[in-house]
């Protein structure tokens, strides 16, 4: 036999890999025969077929003549939208509650504690449905819409925001504006004569705003016609309920991460800062939080990933995200159970891997600063 232990371990690993591949292959071939036995055929050709149903909320255009492939894109964007909104809101709320938790004020401290314990210890799905029904119960019918200054309408069908209709050549201006916006942080750091440009870069967003407003042909205000409000962009209550449910739940966990990370910053740091005469705000934002951030990032990543995955709970409140629309409606209409589930899993895997790659990069970026 092989004498060298290292070589033995090497061979062992290869054998293990071969076994894993063999089992995987066996499972796939078994899947094929089982599907064939039930007269089902494995394949992704159905993605080009016409869908034929309507999607209530979408970010890009949709007609019933579009393909299942476009359903995937539409629902993916919906998932990404609610996840992104959730991540931002959960971070801000979590940070706030986490800091409140360490307040010297008894009331503030215990409100934060009660919030965390209540939210962490009830099921997330129940919370989302609660928000949905709570939102629905409090809002008036379309005919009694609440008028908000600026042409906004609020009713049980959602919040209606005036819509800017772009001119034909507006698309180019929009792209330019986006580019200018994206360039702003780089320009900020641009060294001119050895000094950073800094706040002068803020002129760029103003230019972008000017470009955007130049591309607008007219503004469409929402108004009541027939059953519903027409015109304007609708923010449906389903999105708001899911957003609230996702971000509040994640915020409770993030708050605890924030608290523990702040407490993990050595006491001497605060004492030193105080002895230098820093005020409590400066102490928090200049000394403690930057150091706590480094410890938070890896833990935050897993909370964010959880939040993204939990967006599938939107199916319960009729939010057309990828799980409901693609692994629900499409799965049934196209009769492709295995394929749709594989696609949805692959999509979530991709989103989460990309996101965690980004967070890891960010982690390395902040961790570089020597303690």
């Amino acid at each position: 036999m092989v004498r060298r232990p290292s070589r033995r371990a090497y061979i062992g690993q290869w054998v293990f890999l071969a076994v894993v591949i063999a089992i995987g292959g066996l499972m796939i071939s078994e899947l094929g025969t089982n599907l064939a036995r039930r007269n089902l055929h494995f394949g992704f050709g159905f993605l080009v077929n016409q869908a034929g149903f309507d999607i209530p909320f979408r970010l890009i255009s949709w007609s019933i003549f579009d393909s299942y492939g476009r359903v995937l894109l539409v629902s993916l964007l919906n998932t990404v939208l609610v996840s992104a909104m959730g991540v931002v809101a959960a971070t801000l709320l979590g940070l706030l509650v986490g800091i409140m938790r360490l307040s010297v004020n008894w009331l503030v401290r215990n409100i934060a504690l009660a919030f965390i314990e209540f939210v962490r210890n009830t099921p997330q799905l129940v919370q989302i449905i609660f928000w949905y029904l709570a939102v629905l119960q409090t809002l008036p019918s379309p005919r009694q819409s609440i008028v908000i200054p600026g042409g906004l309408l609020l009713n049980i069908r959602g919040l209606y925001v005036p819509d800017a209709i772009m001119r034909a050549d507006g698309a180019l201006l929009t792209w330019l504006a986006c580019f200018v916006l994206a360039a702003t942080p780089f320009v900020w750091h641009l060294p001119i004569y050895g000094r950073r440009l800094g706040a002068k870069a803020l002129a760029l967003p103003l230019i972008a705003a000017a470009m955007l407003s130049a591309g607008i042909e007219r503004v469409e205000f929402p108004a009541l016609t027939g059953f519903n409000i027409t015109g304007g962009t609708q923010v449906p209550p389903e999105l708001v309920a899911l957003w609230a449910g996702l971000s509040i739940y994640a915020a409770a966990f993030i708050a605890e991460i924030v608290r523990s990370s702040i407490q993990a910053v050595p006491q001497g740091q605060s004492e030193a800062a105080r002895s230098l005469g820093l005020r409590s705000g400066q102490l928090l934002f200049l000394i403690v939080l930057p150091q706590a951030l480094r410890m938070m990032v890896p833990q935050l990543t897993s909370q964010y990933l959880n939040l993204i995955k939990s967006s599938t709970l939107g199916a319960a409140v009729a939010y057309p995200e990828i799980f409901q629309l693609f692994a629900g409606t499409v799965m049934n209409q196209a009769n492709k159970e295995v394929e749709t589930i594989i696609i949805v899993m692959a999509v979530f895997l991709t989103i989460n891997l990309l996101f965690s790659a980004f967070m890891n990069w960010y982690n390395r970026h902040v961790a570089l600063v020597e303690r």
Partner: protein
Amino acid sequence: MLRQILKLTTCCAMVAGMVGFAGASRAQNEVKSATLDAVKKRGQLVCGVDTGIPGFAFQDASGKWQGLDIAYCRAIATAVLGDADKVKYVGTTSKVRFSVLQSGEIDVLIRDSTHTLTRNTELGLAHGAINFFTGEAFMVKKSLGVAHAKELNGATICVLTGTTLELNIADFGRANNIKINTLLFEKPEEAFAAAEAGRCDGYTDDGGSVAAARSTMKNPKDWIILPEAISREFLGSYTRQGDERWNILVRWVHYAMLEGEVLGITKANVDKIKAETKDPETRGFLGLESNFGKFLGVDNDWAYRIIKQVGNYGENYEIYFGPLELPRGWNNLYNNGGLQYPLPWR
């Protein structure tokens, strides 16, 4: 050594093969159905039903399953096992119902499911019997002042996802050049709540289910069901393909429930009729002078037991859809202007 083992194995295999062959030839005249055998061996029917919809399948206050679909599960159980209570109910959502059947987790799916071409072909499922003829209907708030489905332009309607309904609405809108917005829900409870709260202008489903939905509203009188059916939704049972005899049995259980009504035999009078009747058709149906049960793979008392323990079709319809104020319409017997008919018992 190896040779001897090989020889021995071959011998064994041959003997086993001959025994198997003999067994097969002996059973030639019997009904061969893997599902039927499995049900008998298990002593219990596993029936896939709706998760909860008044009329078809729902759990009452004591947690007991009730409904027209449930009556069919019970009828199959009593035909095969002699006891209508030997059923395990598996609540299935519209999303997973067919996968559950295909995977063999349930013996039969009786879940207010529309019989369609693709389910019959692409999904590889076999149609059992249609126990409820209906069409997709709309329920809207009376206060909206809508009288016809075509007036729903611009309205938002709550729908259950994963059903034929979504496509029907889109097609209906296209055909009539109107736009009906939909809101897709996974489960009826949330959809009802959203409709109740006014998030949608109405709710759509199969005629029977819409009547059921109306009965769950806080004030059912506030809602009207629009007169049009925008599609045919003929709901019935499904079995797996490749088990023809099981499918035949499921179908004839349905005919038995109808035949009972045709002959005027009810739960209450079945014993009396069985003891007194001279009518050859009735005697054949109740198994007094026929072998119909044997042909189906059950005993000859099966139809008697169905009527005795479950009742005929009309009785069950009255129990479950009477309270919903849903007229029988298409579901009347053929000799009463309806579409329900049993094939002849010959």
